[in-house]
């Protein structure tokens, strides 16, 4: 069995921008009110009344294969696990915030309570006891998916095998592990 490579697949057409993923993440991970580890971006309305389009792009830490945050971390607190998840060792993070600046996805925040940087962990603590990440588990539109893309029979592998997908800022050389499937606007859109 190949080494695991965890990834998110997000189906844009299924996202309804309810933000259940954001609230679920905040509660699961004790995120201080005012900060978030994940997001839903509203794109639109585009066009001119009454011909309009709008869709939503949910996201979180891209768990890059080549993470810029890791390179700038002076203490080695940010590291990449063998299963692909990018983590922060809270015990040795000194809160210098270089990584916050380095991340092209704005996926990190400074936690005033702990004096350290924080971000999405892929809910690794849930995943290894057999649960989905909190954001995925509660996704009303079934837009968010999580799994091992090195396993060809996993749901995420099948989704990216069967659909055209894109990743964000691929040109930065980050090789992000959040894949977006977008089947396009509905027919009423421009």
């Amino acid at each position, binding site marked *: 069995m190949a080494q695991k490579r965890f990834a998110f697949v997000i189906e844009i*057409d299924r996202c309804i921008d309810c933000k259940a993923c*954001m*609230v679920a993440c905040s*509660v699961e991970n004790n995120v*201080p*009110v005012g900060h978030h580890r994940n997001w839903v971006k509203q794109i639109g309305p585009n*066009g001119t*009344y009454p011909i309009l389009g709008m869709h939503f792009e949910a996201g979180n830490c891209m768990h890059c294969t080549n993470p810029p945050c890791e390179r700038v971390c002076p203490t080695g607190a940010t590291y990449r696990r063998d299963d692909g998840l990018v983590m922060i060792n809270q015990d040795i993070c000194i809160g210098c915030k270089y990584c916050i600046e380095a991340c092209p996805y704005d996926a990190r925040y400074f936690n005033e309570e702990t004096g350290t940087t924080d971000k999405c962990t892929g809910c690794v603590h849930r995943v290894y006891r057999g649960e989905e990440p909190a954001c995925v588990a509660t996704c*009303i539109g079934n837009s968010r998916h999580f799994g091992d893309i090195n396993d060809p029979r996993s749901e995420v592998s099948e989704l990216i095998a069967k659909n055209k997908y894109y990743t964000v800022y691929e040109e930065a050389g980050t090789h992000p592990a959040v894949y977006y499937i977008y089947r396009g606007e509905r027919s009423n859109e421009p």
Partner: protein
Amino acid sequence: MKRNNKDSDEIQYSMSRRKFLGLSAAGAGAAVAAGSGFDQLQAYAAKYGDVVRPTIQNGEVYSLCEMCVWRCGLVAKVRNGKITKLEGNPHHPHSRGKLCPRGQAGLGVTYDPDRLKWPLIRVGKRGEGKFRKVTWGEALDYIAEQMLAIKKKHGPEAMVFSTTHNLLQQQFENLLGAFGSPNYGTQRSLCFNSMITANMLTYGFEEPGRDYKDTAYIIYAGRNLMEAISNSETQDLVEAIANGAKVVVLDPRFSKTAARATDWIPIRPGTDLAFFLAMIHEIIATDLHNKEFVEKYTFGFDELAKEVKKYTPEWAEKECGVSAETIRRVARDFAIAAPRAFAHPNWRTSNFVNSFQTERAIAVLNSIVGNWNKVGGQCPIFGEGEGAGLGSIPQPPYPRSRALRLDGVPYKYPLVPLKLGIFQNLRDAMLTGKPYQAHGWFIYRQNPLSSIPERRKTLQAMAKLDFITVIDVIMNDTAYYADVVLPEATYLERYDPLTVLDGNIYIRQPVIEPLFDSKPGLWIFKELGKRLGLGDYFQYKDEEDYIQAQLRPLPITLEKMKEQGMYVPFEKKEESIESTVFNTSTGKIELSSTLLKRLGHKSVPHWLAPPRPTEEEFYLLTGKVALHTQFFTQNNKLLSDLFPENPLWIHTSAAAQRGIKDGDEVYVESRVGKVKTKALVTEGIRPDCVFMVTGFGHFSKGMRTAFKNGVSDSDLHQTFTDPISGGQALTQTFVKVYKA
């Protein structure tokens, strides 16, 4: 963006001033530290002595959500005696393992630093926010004394009771029935009176269900499932769209549902009726109706056909601003897709006094294409709480009330079901003293100062009353003006009576013991009943005894029920169209209503022109978002963090004409009120409409997160009651908008 330390002089509890100060300091500290982490809310709760008494130390508890009325199943995770996370119950048909953002934020209710902690009796003037902390004994004795004094002096009908949709509603109705008052207010007339009444008159039941699986075509004219989330139905819609269903959304605003639809039709408010009448016309004119179904299961087709003859798509185009070509296309596609097609009954359409006719037209449209009980069409839904053989608690019959109801039901509104009532009329009667003066108001889990149109009138009506008491989990706006406020345990801390859904039984049970000095509703009603001399109506020892009485006829113990969270009876009845009982006078689906005819109304759906705003006015639209439930969630930090206020949507062109830029402060002025808010300039709305999310603009200083955030539509809405269904016409208010 922190709103908590705003000007609020804190609400004052005179007897506990010192304790209170300590408490508010903790609250403010939590708010100022940009952190105010969720742990802090819990730590804060834990600070109050031994308040955290978990039912289990570590593990999972099945229960039911109460963040809206959909009642999803949940699984609460508990660690070291604290609730750490809520998940959707995978075995519950409403959640299917998922919770919406409000459901996920349930801990924000239980661990809200602003929770009501003890019973309070007012010491200052009404609305001054000065209360003294009292014991339950003192509070309940006082309430009973006041209610009995009113009963003695003015009769039981002088006490008004009101509540909103909840699992304890039956026990609440038990209290008012036993007390002997006919005056019962619910939220229903502010919501779906026209839908329910129209379906009762057409089908003989309240609401047809929808079969999303395998549906090919859906029309919405008000139900905004992507933002006003009903978990399972929203999930169903997303799946239906993914499976290629065509979705038509009639909405003057580009909602998130509209964004995911195949057709967004920005129709003129109040004219959906014209659209549906023209669809019926077109389907009959092109012979696309299901003749066999119409013949066998419906009544009054010829009368209908005669009436709709004049409602051509060209006629409708003039009324609703939708091209005749579009109406023809939707009518044809809908009829061809049928029976795998339905026009959703909605909760409310674009709400005018013609909404009853709109809902009738929708019911009739579905009937002529014969989608009843067909795959992908409409289907029966089991009534909640019915069947499944639950036991009940013995009780004597209620005293007979001879008094008229203050809301005019049924003597002025013979078609409005008693349990729906007309809330806005009830408020007006409190104000006018006609047909008689009310003297007391018992309010449970409700905030009428924010929900009923014309807040000023509601305040004036309250000023006429001798006694007001509110039971809630938070000092909502109405509680702030009450004489006695009782703290109820939140839904994660109490039992409610068992409920039945799709023939299965589900339990709401405490995950932790009630925090502070809050008490479960079942306990409160029993204790109050005892003091009112109505103990016989509450023959249960405690919450568990009540549930055990419900379970008695069934082969399951309370322990097992608690462990599983649900019980599936052995046999369930399958419904077929042959077994459907259309509970109408003819026993058929009434396209022409015999009852309407008997009461002197026109019996088939027909055009009623809605009023239009003047050149300088806008239609005021109001609606929901995924992150809030009515007036109840704005103090929940987990939700308000993501949706803190409700700016006014205005179209780019209308804003430009008035020199309004995005983010500018504007006045919104109706014929009854004026508010100042921020403008959200967008392409996504008809240029003759403005929109705001409902539920904001709280003025209770006891809600420190929500206090004065955004504005309340109840300051703007005018009161208009549909003469047939009693529904409040929420869209019939027109406003002027100008730069502040």
